[in-house]
């Protein structure tokens, strides 16, 4: 059996991995949903075709993240989920709407198709907003004040922008012609909004939270960490330049916006984890205190070691199968 301390670190690393993979993967397909046009069926079809083979597996990372919290840190899981009762219910509503709309739009009567498209878009928006809202409440340590809810709403808008950004990056990479051109425009706009969002959260977070302030300004490694926000800012600026170039010449590295966005996601997420580590419920509960029974977690670990590499392997395989520009999607 492994020591409790080791298991706590390992399971929090796994949980962090699941969350960031979820944010990137489901982020792009939610982003595509947010960008879905209401009045252009061929474009909507192609956009949905680009995420068709993936969305289901992407969403599974959320189940894994929640599952890991449930298994490894049950006390934290129940504190967080009870505090977020209503936003979670709304998020689930969004996820349900989106997931079923994807299948219904292709099979239901033509006159209902547009309704399902709207459900798809609305579901994606609700999911993105509520996830941001919950992130905001988490950062504010679930404090129920007006300021805290305003901040959460701001964070919700930030996550909509972030998912739109990565969704547009995905479309630039996977589509051509008209859709790619519009995606470049959407990408530039959401790049700007996401930049403002990141700036706002980065400034507010250390101001309101003494622990976060110490993490960034008060320890020996703080100095080493400070370049991170700078690199993040530089990436936003590079992104903007790349998009201008892409607009003039569509064959210029169409994968770049997606790749840059993934790097931005990674940096922001790392910053967030660093801000709160080792707390799993900010200011209340650390990963070491919240840990479940080590013997149960050791039993679980065998599966993790054997299965997670396999999951990564066949996920990569599936992306290779559907590599390249999206073609029409039909059930075969």
């Amino acid at each position, binding site marked *: 059996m492994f020591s409790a301390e080791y298991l706590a670190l390992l399971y929090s690393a796994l949980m962090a991995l699941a969350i960031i993979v979820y944010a990137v993967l489901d982020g792009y397909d939610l982003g595509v949903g947010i960008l879905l046009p209401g009045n252009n069926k061929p474009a909507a079809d192609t956009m949905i075709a680009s995420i068709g083979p993936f969305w289901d597996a992407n969403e599974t990372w959320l189940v894994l993240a929640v599952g890991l919290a449930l298994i490894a840190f049950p006390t934290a899981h*129940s504190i967080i989920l009870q505090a977020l009762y209503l936003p979670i219910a709304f998020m689930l*509503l969004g996820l349900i709407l989106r997931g079923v709309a994807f299948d219904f739009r292709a099979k239901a009567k033509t006159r209902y198709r547009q309704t399902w498209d709207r459900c798809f878009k609305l579901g994606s928006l609700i999911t993105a907003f509520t996830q941001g809202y919950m992130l905001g409440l988490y950062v504010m340590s679930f404090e129920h004040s007006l300021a805290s809810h305003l901040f959460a709403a701001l964070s919700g808008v930030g996550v909509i922008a972030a998912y739109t950004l990565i969704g547009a990056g995905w479309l630039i990479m996977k589509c051509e012609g008209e859709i790619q051109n519009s995606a470049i425009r959407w990408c530039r706009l959401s790049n700007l909004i996401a930049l403002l969002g990141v700036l706002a959260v980065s400034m507010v977070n250390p101001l309101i939270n003494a622990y976060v302030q110490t993490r960034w300004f008060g320890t020996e490694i703080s100095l080493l960490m400070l370049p991170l926000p700078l690199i993040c800012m530089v990436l936003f600026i590079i992104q903007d330049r790349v998009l201008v170039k892409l607009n003039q010449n569509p064959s210029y590295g169409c994968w770049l916006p997606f790749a840059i966005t993934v790097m931005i996601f990674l940096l922001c997420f790392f910053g967030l984890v660093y801000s709160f580590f080792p707390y799993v419920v900010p200011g209340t509960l650390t990963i070491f205190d919240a840990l479940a029974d080590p013997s149960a977690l050791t039993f679980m670990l065998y599966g993790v070691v054997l299965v997670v590499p396999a999951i990564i392997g066949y996920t990569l395989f599936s992306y290779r199968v*559907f590599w390249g520009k999206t073609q029409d999607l039909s059930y075969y």
Partner: protein
Amino acid sequence: MLDTLLLSRIQFAANISFHILFPTITIALAWFLVFFKFRYDQTGEAVWLRAYRFWVKIFALTFALGVVSGITMSFQFGTNWPGFMERIGNIAGPLLGYEVLTAFFMEATFLGIMLFGMKRVSPRLHTFATLIVAIGTTLSAFWILSLNSWLQTPTGYTLVDGVFYPKDWFEIIFNPSFGYRFFHMLLASALTASFLMAGISAYRLLKEDHKHAPKLTLKVSLTVAALLAPMQMFVGDLHGLNTFEHQPQKVAAMEGVWETEQGAPLLLFALPDEQTRTNHFEVAIPKLASLILTHDKDGEIKGLNEFKGEHPPVKPVFFGFRIMVGIGVLMILVALVARYTLWKHSTLPTWQLKALVVMTFSGWIATLAGWYVTEIGRQPFMVNGLVKIEELVTTVPSEHVLLTLIGYLALYAVLLTAYIKTLFYTARNAVQVEEYQTTPVQGGQYV
């Protein structure tokens, strides 16, 4: 009074009832698809591919509904039942975790290849992807039924200050009721999917669909139903005997036995009354219940009065059991008669086709009734005999739970209606499609 506990229970029951409808179909439908695809690879006959194409659409829709309603439940453990994970988490956590790791990812990823990848991978790899999805759905059932069975018949644990710790994982996973429940559920899924397939195929035939595919799927599904429906009766009986051994109070409620009896009768009908603790309007076959449960016509069956305050509400368990068995018997009759007619005359008369359309969702009703028997039959306990459900509930205000409950119920009503309508719409649509091209175009594909 609508308190948080009651509302949370209604909400979880609504969610899980809605959820189970879809996996019940997909677990077995996936294996039907493997069979269709395998036969196509083997024979090269286009009709197998047509059957595959039609049913893969229904599979995709059903699977999506199963996924989204399943995600809801993984959150509800935390939002509404925090005590569940705090006390049972060391057992339930790894079992749920293994379900996510070994089943969910595999299903979801290979589903993409199965649905959209036929032009992009080799035929053999595509069949393999279909097989992996089928294995995934079955593995998922394996883990979740292991957990459910553990709650019914807990073994392999130690209990310290109200918290469960694992002692022997083999005993936990293969707990005494697991094998019975797992096979009972797999057969339930096979029957639900076959009656769905038979019903929709019959509907297409009634709508004058003269293609070969619906005739073929009618034959395949009726063959499976005729073989497995009688077997389900047998497995169900073994499952009942297992329950009699481990949860006698549940069986007492199923049989409507109040006082401990030797030579208890089998009640075909009765109206159990919890106030007077007696039955009204009994229609009974003497000594049969004792004979079935103890293999002795004068065997003893413990009555509900021995478990006062700790037995389940009698009416839902009693009637749920009768609905399940009644529909089960009906399914056996319909499957045998229809399969026999098909064998004799190689076609079905209109009245039999209509009967099959009526029976399209019979598997759903029997499965739900069966789950109500086993789950309500475990009340008032979460872990049989050890932890009561009321100990585990959330502190969230009841108005919030009421709000979300109304939201879920409204959404589920819309989705269920849309699902059923879409199934029949897809069937009608298939009728109108011209006879398919029978010569392969590029890459062995048919259009």
